[in-house]
């Protein structure tokens, strides 16, 4: 079994898994970003950017050639282990990109909740019920219907 064939098979598996991940995440990410970003334009931009980043990093990690032996001395087992190494690196890259997007989402959700707290805090002041000095802003408002 030639190393190039093993590389091509593992690369195709990586590309397929990357596309499946992107399609799996897309509707849920879109709903969350619509809520957190506030405007459809920003949500659309960050949706496209996030999915493109996951896809690019997945393909980059899934086409690594590290671990393949020299073609002249390669046995079938060596090629198989090279393919396993390629898929392992792909999974590391895919997981890293998904976790990085999740970290960004957590930051955005925190900012969203801070904005909601601040707005409710000043709304309470306008209603004539000023909070006591040193009192923290009230809890976050419920999400929009």
């Amino acid at each position, binding site marked *: 079994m030639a190393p*190039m064939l093993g*590389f*091509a098979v593992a*690369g195709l598996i990586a590309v397929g898994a990357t596309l499946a991940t992107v399609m799996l995440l897309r509707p849920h990410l879109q709903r969350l970003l619509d809520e*957190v970003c*506030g*405007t*459809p*334009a*920003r949500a*659309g*931009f960050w*949706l*496209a*950017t996030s*999915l*493109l*980043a996951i896809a*690019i*990093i997945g*393909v*980059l990690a899934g*086409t690594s*050639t590290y671990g393949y032996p020299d*073609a002249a001395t390669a046995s079938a087992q060596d090629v198989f282990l090279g393919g396993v190494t390629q898929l392992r690196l792909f999974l590391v890259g895919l997981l890293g990109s998904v976790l990085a997007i999740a970290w960004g989402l957590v930051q955005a959700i925190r*900012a*969203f*909740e801070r*904005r*909601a707290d*601040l*707005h*409710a805090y000043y*709304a309470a002041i*306008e*209603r004539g019920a000023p909070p006591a000095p040193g009192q923290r802003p009230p809890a976050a*408002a419920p999400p*929009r219907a």
Partner: protein
Amino acid sequence: MTSLVVAGAGMALVAAALATVLLALRRPLAATLIELCGEPHRGRLWNRVARVALVAGTLLVVLLGSWLSTSLEAGTPPLLGVMALLRWGLTGLLLSLGVVSAAVVQYTLRLGRHTPPEYGAGSVPPRQVGG
């Protein structure tokens, strides 16, 4: 001849990846920049600038990468040469996308500091007047 074929195939794949990214970002980037800039003509200008930066950054990284690596040398298998060019192109795309995203984040934060949040932008519903 083989190096020329490898370079052509690699650049064709890079161009396909670049076209996919530009197509996916076309409407969202334009809408975001028009919203952040406030005026459509300013948004269109920065949209063009961002797209030129994406293309130029990607091509620059591909050319630098092919210069630094052995992807176009005679002993390299053709598939590996093509994949090396594609990987440099994807690296450039990722870096350029990161720069454009960082610029959008900066302008979004700047806009958030200067304008009060509106309903829907992480705020509570507006109060009923006289209610």
